[in-house]
């Protein structure tokens, strides 16, 4: 379980958690788990139920469908939240392109976590809005 001063300072530098006070960051550091993946391993699996929420601590990953990369994710980026929020399986794979270290939260813990930390929810919403805008621009 991640909980040291190092984890707290890493979290504090990620945009998603930038508004949290130090005590709140410590609480978050104790709540999130940490997992690591070698390059080329799948982290999020398209069409498999029950995804978790991931925030990248170190490394990079691709979002891809049928092996076709759509976007690159790096430190501070997060994924899995759409599947958690909609209750639907992920619509794409996320595949590590380097050694990838992520903070994670199991799906069922995401709602209470966001309600407990509304500034994190707001930052997440801003990010989703940006993504929606990009998606609309592409379509238009």
């Amino acid at each position, binding site marked *: 379980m991640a909980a040291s*001063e190092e984890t707290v300072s890493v979290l504090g530098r990620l945009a998603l958690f930038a508004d949290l006070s130090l005590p709140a960051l*410590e609480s978050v550091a104790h709540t999130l788990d940490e997992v*690591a993946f070698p390059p080329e391993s799948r982290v999020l699996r398209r*069409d*498999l139920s029950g*995804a978790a929420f991931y925030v990248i601590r170190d490394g990079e990953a691709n979002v891809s469908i049928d092996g076709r990369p759509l976007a690159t994710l790096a430190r501070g980026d997060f994924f899995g939240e759409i599947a958690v929020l909609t209750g639907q399986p992920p619509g794409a794979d996320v595949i590590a392109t380097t050694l990838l270290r992520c903070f994670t939260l199991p799906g069922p813990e995401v709602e209470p976590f966001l309600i407990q930390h509304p500034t994190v929810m707001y930052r997440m919403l801003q990010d989703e809005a940006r993504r929606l805008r990009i998606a609309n621009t592409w379509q238009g």
Partner: protein
Amino acid sequence: MAGVAAGEQPFPPGDYGVVVVGSGPGGLQTAYCLARLGIDYAAISADDAPGGMFARMPIFERLISPTKPSAPFDRTSRDYQRYDHNSLLADEEGARGLVPEFMDRSFDVPSRAEMHMALQAFAERAPVRVRYGCRWESTRREDDGMLVLGTSDGEYRCRAAVFAIGVTEPWKPKVPGFDMAPHYAETRPPREYEGRRVTIIGKRNSGFEIANGLLPWAREVVMLSPRPVNTSSIALLPIRTRYLQPYDEYARGLGGAYVLDAAIERVDRAGEAFRVVAQGTTKPGPLSIEADDVIIATGFRTPLLDLPELGVATVSDGRIPALTPFFESISAPGVYFAGNASGGAAGLLKVERAGQSTSVNGFRYNARLLAQRIAERHFDVPRERAAIEPGRIVSFLLDELTHSPELWVQRGYLARVVSFGDGPRDEGYEPLTYFVDATGPDAVAAAVELAPDASIAPVLYVRRGGNITEHQLAPHPLHVYETDDYRAELEHALSALVRIAV
């Protein structure tokens, strides 16, 4: 060295196929499984007897996983393993289900001493030979890829090394003043806390264990950590069997026990006593707590020595090695972990973190899988792949889903796999992540998982033409899946695969 004459020591330094480090349950189980597969190995341990951390911990004696001395199944049977989460696995009847033999049955959760005796009995009866008093001190890789372990007895050269070294090194976060306070592992006998005010930093297993153990002695017990106790889920955690009394007393306002959510800023000296300065998290605001004793129960780390320099990647700030589904370091080939340290394998993270890899009940199966994997990968010893009659596949899988301790204990982590590449074959157990990510022949994996509504239910993963389809089965209230309804459901899910096989 106690009890072992130098001349009787097995495994002198030299060249071996595999070296297993550690003689706790993870090391004993791995060495046992490698021996059964006929792999050339050496087992070494810095301790002078088997048992690992159970020789010393938990401090307040009671484990957190159950063993039921009375069960509907014989103690040597496979079904009994689901009733006994502490015994190691053996092919020989005389070495199976040993923990209940040593229990005084005051609880269905064994004491530390009972567990320790059972592990010693396992080492004698299985038997598992270990070179005791041989301390692993360094590690390097030679140009040909071989690993060399430097020890107090000399050098061991091997193709693969298994570190079953536990998560046993006391770990404290770097908070000012924590260096003045003892770690959980240094807790004194409880009577020495009589009439004292004790503040415990940490609200996980070890924090609650100490707090509960000191309730009959201390004048005041305060538990502090940033994260709140999750009351809705804690009822399902193993610690509730023994250690929730402090929380109960605080929640009922009894006085003398306090369970608080706060980030600790520092610990100061206050005359003979200490002052713990903290900031509330769930309820913001400053906290200042005077205590005669402060105990840091913030957990442990894996004693990796120089393995990070060899390239072993870790998670949680260096505390746990990051592992593949088969318990190999994700970044240092040939370096494997067993026992409690095998919890660093991510698994299929769905509703929960899959499996029980950090306790004996789960890692005993990991060790068997690990030995088989090492045999296959490093020694070209193929695993047994028994042919199954096409007409028997559904019954076989229903039997697994109802009875398999591997599936029920390593829930969401292990799956039983039947492949259809060269006729239906039983592939044994595989990590579920490995199955869903591997390319391979048409196959089915049967697993047991936690559903979002907290029920436990079987899930089938069918691989056909390289694509995986997931079939969730409805949970049976008594967990019995050998019924006509489930048979029909499986036949439907497998129809395409089985038709081809016929």
